[in-house]
């Protein structure tokens, strides 16, 4: 990183997470590095089981499986979070780093009102009275586009629709004005129209609240619409990282290219079948010695199977963990995909 750039808000270096299983450590996330500038939106993309959520949970310090091993470094505003005492971590959680979860149906405690649960978070971090907390709750709910926020605050989670619940969830996450918002598949459980609204809301947060967002998704279309930069994870390792524009136009990793191919085009003739990536990602206990994507890759050859390929720089901030560019046979640039996905 050039010296003249300001220190990033979040700087993750060599993050590894291993879970114990049958007497040995199974690596779920391996040497993941990325950084997120102030007011930036980073998309963390990958299939189910690629380690996206585990990465997010590790940043939040929410993994409490006995015997789990988290190593590497997570610096938040220059402060190391890995190994931070639980009490200090708790003070950061919800106040400086907030999280939105995938399924708003189950993410609220069913026996309390929405307002009560948002008040609770405010009062956990700040010395304010019940009425002050409620006033702020109502204000934020309103800002998140919840109609009639005062009445909604008195409602129970099951009485709200999925979209409203996700707005309430975002309101709760923003209630203490966090600088970093981690959104773990915030739109997966919602229907398409609501999905677009929620994405709009998340995108607008950096202007209205100055929040940086780490957006976790499996949907390249969502990344195209929302994120400044993209990080593609495959089987717990970084496959490709870079500014969204570059990644979408010049994918350096065959996996990224295949993901981009699987976005249905919005304009022009639609293919009968969307191209799919054959096979399934390797299970974490049985990752190949070489490139984890090798067994599913159309370009696989002998050099791929020896050792996991290192990240090769492809341009400013752009890198891919693939041997092809170094061998002088990079993937062809794509000129239509981004235009299609993001008109």
């Amino acid at each position, binding site marked *: 990183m050039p010296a003249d750039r300001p220190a990033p808000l979040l700087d993750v270096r060599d993050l590894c997470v291993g879970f114990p299983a049958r007497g040995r450590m199974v690596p779920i996330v391996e040497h993941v590095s990325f950084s997120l500038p102030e007011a930036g939106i980073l998309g963390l993309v990958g299939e189910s089981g690629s380690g996206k959520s585990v990465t997010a949970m590790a940043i939040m310090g929410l993994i409490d499986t006995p015997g789990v091993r988290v190593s590497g470094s997570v610096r938040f505003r220059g402060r190391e979070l890995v190994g931070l005492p639980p009490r200090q971590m708790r003070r950061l959680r*919800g106040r400086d780093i*907030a999280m939105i979860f995938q399924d708003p149906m*189950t*993410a*609220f*405690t*069913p026996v309390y009102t929405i307002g009560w649960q948002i008040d609770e978070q405010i009062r956990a971090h700040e010395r304010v009275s019940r009425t002050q907390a409620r006033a702020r709750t109502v204000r934020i709910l309103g800002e998140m586009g919840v109609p009639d926020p005062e009445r909604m605050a008195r409602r129970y989670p099951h*009485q709200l629709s999925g979209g409203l619940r996700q707005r309430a*969830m975002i309101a709760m996450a923003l209630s203490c004005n966090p600088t970093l918002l981690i959104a773990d598949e915030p739109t997966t459980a919602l229907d398409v129209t609501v999905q677009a609204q929620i994405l709009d809301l998340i995108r607008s947060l950096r202007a209205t609240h100055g929040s940086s967002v780490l957006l976790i998704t499996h949907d390249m279309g969502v990344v195209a619409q929302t994120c400044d930069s993209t990080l593609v994870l495959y089987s717990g390792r970084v496959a490709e990282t870079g500014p969204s524009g570059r990644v979408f136009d010049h994918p350096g990793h065959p996996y990224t290219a295949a993901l981009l191919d699987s976005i249905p085009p919005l304009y022009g003739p639609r293919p009968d079948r969307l191209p799919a990536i054959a096979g399934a990602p390797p299970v974490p206990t049985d990752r190949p010695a070489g490139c984890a994507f090798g067994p599913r890759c159309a370009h696989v050859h002998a050099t791929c199977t020896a050792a996991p390929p290192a990240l090769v720089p492809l341009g400013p901030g752009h890198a891919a963990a693939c041997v092809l560019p170094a061998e002088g046979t990079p993937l062809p640039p794509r000129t239509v995909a981004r235009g299609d996905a993001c008109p």
Partner: protein
Amino acid sequence: MTGLLRRAGQTLLVLFGVSVLVFGIFFATPGADPTARIAGRNASPQTMEKVRHEYGFDRPLPVQYAIMMKKLFITRDLASYANRGERVVPEIMQAAPVTACLVCGAAFIWVTASIAMGTVAAAMKDTWVDRGLMMLGLVGISIPVFWLGEVANLITQNRYHDTWLFSWVPGLGYIPFSQSPLGWFRALVIPWVVLAVMFIGIYSRVLRTDLVTLAGEDFMRTARAKGLSPVRVLLWHGLRTSMVTFVSLFGMDFAQLAGGGALLTEVVFGLPGVGRLTYRALTTLDLPVIMAAVMYSAVFVVLANAAVDVIYLFLDPRVRDAR
């Protein structure tokens, strides 16, 4: 409000059904003469004739049912022939408060103790504290209540009664609260604990399992992500949600105990409650008493169930809306 009314209507309907069933089992079973059963063993022909007329056993079944219900609930003069004309209903009404005191006290102990044990065990999951508490719970479940009661009696009434430790324990039997509150407490405290032991075991284990399962729920993760302390997450989010399961379990057990299920405890400690009354009636084959006791117990179970439903309304907003 309409929900409550509808609930009350349902309760009445269930009670009617239960009474018909109980009546049917006792008096409408073919091949047995209910007159002989009511009159008791070796009754004289005159008594038989009197009973047959009084209970309308020479008239159709619906009339018999109506007479029986009238005798149970309106005139309350159902009499026991085996026990020389003792009125049955007042007898039960006298026994009911004793049972109620016993069961309520025990319930208080088992709810408090099992919540404490279950929560601590869940919070310290997989440590020796957790394992120790759950082992203790299993021991509590495995000990038969009559054996525990007899051992308690042996120690406090017999072996060590004269030592300073147990000299305060009064003799077996019941002391009404109105007569001496302290005596009432002393007479009941050991039965309370003995009756509660098994339930403490069951409830603490159920609660621990429930809390451990809940710990994996999304909303518990949300609560932790909010930056709440582990204690607050466990108590305000986990335990509060667990109470929904806990109460439904509690309602069942409480109802069956109050309806006479504490029979063994009452017999062992000589408490003149509904259970002991039933026990005595069973040994003398005193049919009217047995039937009245069964009716009483059924009524109690149904009413307690309705009460649990009302508590449910307060505990679970989802149920509130479903009505």
